[in-house]
């Protein structure tokens, strides 16, 4: 983590990185738990009923997988971060497959804030930036709605000030 922050910026313009609030991790882990419980129930009940009680041990399989996913979710959540610099937005994410995106504010065509029913339940919102290039993949998930709105307003304002189009 520390060495990545060191190499990420060019000297003299160190970005101030922000992580994601813990809400996203909580939501993902809860969803994981719910699905694991359902799977474990199915994996335990069906062989247990049809093939004998010993086969109910199959229920352990999803539980072990889930424990591993639990860790992965944590690592993935920690890897997400973004930084607003004077002229561009930086988004960095991924543990194994790392990706870092730089979008100059002037190239933004539209800023989108979305929030699905589950996300709303957990008080989360997703901010997505669109440029004229379809390949631009600048999404920040799991933000506080207040932070998402602040980011949206700031990005829109900066985008207007530096607008450059195609």
């Amino acid at each position: 983590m520390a060495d990545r922050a060191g190499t990420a910026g060019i000297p003299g313009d160190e970005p101030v990185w922000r992580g994601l609030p813990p809400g996203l991790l909580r939501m993902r882990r809860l969803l994981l738990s719910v699905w694991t419980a359902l799977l474990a129930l199915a994996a335990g009940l069906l062989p247990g009923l049809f093939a004998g009680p010993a086969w109910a041990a199959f229920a352990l399989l999803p539980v072990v997988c889930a424990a591993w996913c639990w860790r992965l979710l944590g690592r993935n959540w920690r890897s997400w971060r973004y930084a607003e610099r004077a002229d561009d937005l930086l988004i960095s994410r991924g543990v194994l497959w790392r990706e870092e995106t730089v979008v100059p504010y002037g190239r933004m065509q539209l800023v989108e804030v979305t929030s699905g029913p589950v996300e709303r339940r957990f008080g989360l919102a997703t901010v997505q930036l669109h440029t004229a290039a379809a390949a631009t993949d600048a999404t920040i998930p799991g933000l506080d709605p207040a932070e998402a709105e602040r980011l949206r307003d700031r990005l829109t304002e900066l985008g207007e000030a530096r607008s450059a189009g195609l």
Partner: protein
Amino acid sequence: MSSPDHADGTDAMDTPKARGTAYGARPDGGGETAGAQDAEERIPVAERRLHPVTPFRRAWAPVAVLAGWAVHDPNGAQEQLARLTDTMLLLGLAVLVPVAGLYGFLSWWFTHFAVTGSELRIRTGLLFRRTAHIRLERIQAVDVSRPLLARVAGVAKLRIDVVGADKKDELAFLGEQEARALRAELLARAAGFAPETAHEVGEAPAHELLHVPPRALALSLVLTAATWGSLCAALLVPTVLWLTTHNLWTVLGTALPLLGGAGAHSAGRFVAEFDWKVAESPDGLRIDHGLLDRTHETVPPGRVQTVRIVEPLLWRRLGWVRVELDVAGSANSVLIPVAPRAVAESVIARVLPGVTVPQELSRAPGRARWCVPVWWRGRRLAVTGTVFATRHGLLRRSLSLVPHAKVQSVRLTQGPWQRLWRLADVHVDTGAGKTVTAGQRDAEEAVRLLHEQAERSRTGRRDARPDRWMTAG
């Protein structure tokens, strides 16, 4: 057939909704028109219709469908036709052709277009109304195309490429003179001439940069691997089939389509790229080409997003290259089908002002061989003051140039295997939906490249020309 009383008669029989469309521009027009139409009424704009020959292209549709079917499935068509008597057939056509003609006529009657100060407005639709407002300063390219039959009839299609434009947004058909005048007017307005004078500005004078002689084009197609590949397939597959099955019909059944396909590919390219001319005018680049279907494209200054120099293996000895370009929203992607490298580079220098094609490109580090075994040698990168250039391919080299001002976003990606070898990819996204990738760079260099490129693309805009290219600003 376009006499006013006839037209009014047709209209009266139609639904009230359609009536509203036809007379939307008139003050007493249909009562249920939307608010946008009220706004239109306030500004008087001369609305025009397309060329009166337009309905005929719909009228012939049933005949064309029948002919297509007969060609596609001769036995089935003959069987079905034998059952029908001649009178039945004529009767059928006598019903179908007028119905299609009526449809063509109505769709022509309800299609209007107008050029206002800032946009081209196309109003169309009989039942489902659709109004396209195309903003002129957002024009990426203007195409006038004349398919063979349209050339016989003396008409042309005019299409404006903007980001997200639809196939429906083309003006088909206009008279040839009218299309040319309209193109000149649209470009003059888009360039920033005052609307009152835009009529009289006329065509900008063009100065020819390049003409591809037919012999060079034919030779270049002969030297294309795809031509030989399809020819080999067309000869090999039937031979193998003959040796295994000894069935003449099977062999003929596969050989003819394969040979036809091989011929159609090369001949099609020859016909489409025949008489290729690139010219330069104050309104931008003009590209004219085609043997049977003529196409005239105009790309205003500053609209080219990326340029690719492609060098197939067999052309390398002759020093020939093909140049492709990407303009957002445009279908055409060829700038020069074939030309000597020096000529191509001089044309590129005119298309992307201030850009010289970098000759020295840096290679990927040697350890990239563990990520991309043989082809790592082809991956090259050069960044100059004006462009980001990457090359890939060993046999068919392709050098992509992106001006810094056209970069929309920059991304760095690194997979686990690449991390092991301290390598990373840098992607540069452009507005034409194309991504140019500098593959397998040293990880530290890639991080530096990412941030420097973001900085360059931001500052690269400063000396770009304005969208309205004839205005100072």
